[in-house]
C-alpha cells in the first residue's frame, strides 16, 4: 500500500520538477539560506501519544483531529476547496499582470491540488465519510474581496503562511500520517507565501503600486492575525494535551506576527495597529 502511494507521489514530484523555473518553487531559495520558520516545542510534561492510520482513536482525539482537518480544508473531496481554487483561476485569468505571473499561479494551483491528494489519502485512512465531506472555509480571511493582483498577493503572503506555520507545528503531531506529510506541506505553503511576497515586491516598485499595497494592508493584516483564533480558546489545551498542537493560539500568532512584520517593513510599508479591526483577540 505505502509503496503504491510513494510511486504516485513520485510522479507528481517529477511533474513538479518539470515546472521549475528560476522563480518556482519559491521555497527553494528560502530554505537554502537556513530554516526560515520558528520551532514550536511541545510542553516537556506532555503525555506521549502516538497514533498511526488504523489505530483505534480515543473519541475526543478523533473529534479534535477531524475538527483540525475540517479547518485545513485542502481535500480532493471537499468541493468548497475546489471551488476556492476555481476563484484563484478566475482571478489569474481576469487580472494577471503578465504571462510569467500567470504561469506561476498555474504552478501554485497544481501544488495545492497535490496537497488535496495528500489530505484526501489522510482522510480516507482516518474516516471514509470525511473524505467526501464538503466544508466551506469558515474564516472570513478566505472570503475577503480580491479586486487586484495586490489583494491576491496579500492573500498568499498571509494565508498560505498561516498554513506553513501550522504545518511546522504538525512536525510534532501525535497523528503519524500528519507528521509524515508536514514537512512537504510546510515547505510548499511557505513557497506560496513567498510567491505572494514576490508579487508584492514587484507591485511596490512603483509609487502607485506601493500606495495601493499600503492601503490594502489595512484589510489583510487584521484578518491574518485573526486567523489564529482567540488567545483564550478553550479547545487549545485539549489539542496540546493530545499532541495535536504544540503551542497555543497566542504563541503561534506572536511568532507569525514577528515574521510578517519584518517582511512588511522590508517592503517599506507602515505596520497597522495590531489591534485595529481585529475580531478574534
Amino acid at each position: 500500500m505505502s509503496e503504491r502511494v510513494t510511486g504516485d507521489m513520485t510522479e507528481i514530484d517529477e511533474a513538479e520538477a518539470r515546472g521549475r523555473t528560476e522563480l518556482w518553487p519559491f521555497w527553494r531559495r528560502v530554505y537554502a539560506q537556513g530554516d526560515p520558520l520558528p520551532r514550536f516545542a511541545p510542553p516537556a510534561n506532555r503525555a506521549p501519544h502516538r497514533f498511526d492510520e488504523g489505530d483505534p482513536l480515543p473519541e475526543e482525539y478523533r473529534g479534535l483531529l477531524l475538527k483540525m482537518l475540517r479547518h485545513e480544508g485542502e481535500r480532493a473531496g471537499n468541493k468548497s476547496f475546489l471551488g476556492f481554487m476555481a476563484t484563484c483561476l478566475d482571478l489569474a485569468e481576469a487580472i494577471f499582470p503578465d504571462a510569467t505571473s500567470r504561469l506561476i499561479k498555474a504552478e501554485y494551483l497544481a501544488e495545492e491540488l497535490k496537497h488535496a491528494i495528500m489530505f484526501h489519502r489522510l482522510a480516507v485512512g482516518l474516516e471514509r465519510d470525511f473524505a467526501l465531506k464538503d466544508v466551506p472555509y469558515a474564516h472570513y480571511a478566505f472570503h475577503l474581496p480580491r479586486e487586484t493582483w495586490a489583494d491576491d498577493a496579500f492573500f498568499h503572503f498571509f494565508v498560505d503562511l498561516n498554513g506553513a506555520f501550522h504545518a511546522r507545528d504538525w512536525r510534532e503531531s501525535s497523528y503519524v500520517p500528519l507528521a509524515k506529510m508536514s514537512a512537504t506541506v510546510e515547505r510548499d505553503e511557505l513557497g506560496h507565501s513567498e510567491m505572494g511576497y514576490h508579487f508584492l515586491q514587484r507591485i511596490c516598485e512603483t509609487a502607485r503600486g506601493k500606495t495601493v499595497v499600503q492601503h490594502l494592508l489595512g484589510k489583510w493584516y487584521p484578518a491574518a492575525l485573526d486567523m489564529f483564533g482567540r488567545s483564550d480558546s478553550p479547545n487549545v489545551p485539549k489539542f496540546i494535551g493530545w499532541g495535536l498542537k504544540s503551542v497555543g493560539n497566542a504563541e503561534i500568532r506572536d511568532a507569525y506576527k514577528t515574521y510578517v512584520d519584518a517582511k512588511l517593513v522590508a517592503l517599506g510599508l507602515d505596520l497597522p495597529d495590531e489591534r485595529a479591526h481585529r475580531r478574534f483577540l
Partner: protein
Amino acid sequence: MSDIVEEIRTAYGRVGITLDRPATYGTYYRLLCAGCGKMVGNVGDRLLPDMAAALVEQQFDLYAIGGLGCPCGHQRQVTRGLDAARWEAAQRRYGGVA
C-alpha cells in the same frame, strides 16, 4: 440569499460594482463592473456582519484614484458622484500615482 450576500451586493452597488451569480459551488461571487461588465474581482459569502460596507468604504480613495476598479473608469466616475470633496482630496493626496 443570505443577509451577508445582500450586504455585499449593496456595499458594492454604491461604487458601481455588481455581484454576479454565485460562482463554483455557491460560496464565492464574481464582482463585475456595472459599467462594462468586466470581471474586477471576487468575494466570498462568509464575511462578518457589516464588514462589506466597511471594506468598500475604506477602499473609496483607491476607487477614486483608479487604484482599484475597472480600467474603463466606471468606479472612478461613480465615486466622484458619491462624494466629490472626498474624491478631490484623494486626487490631491495621491497626486501623480493614479
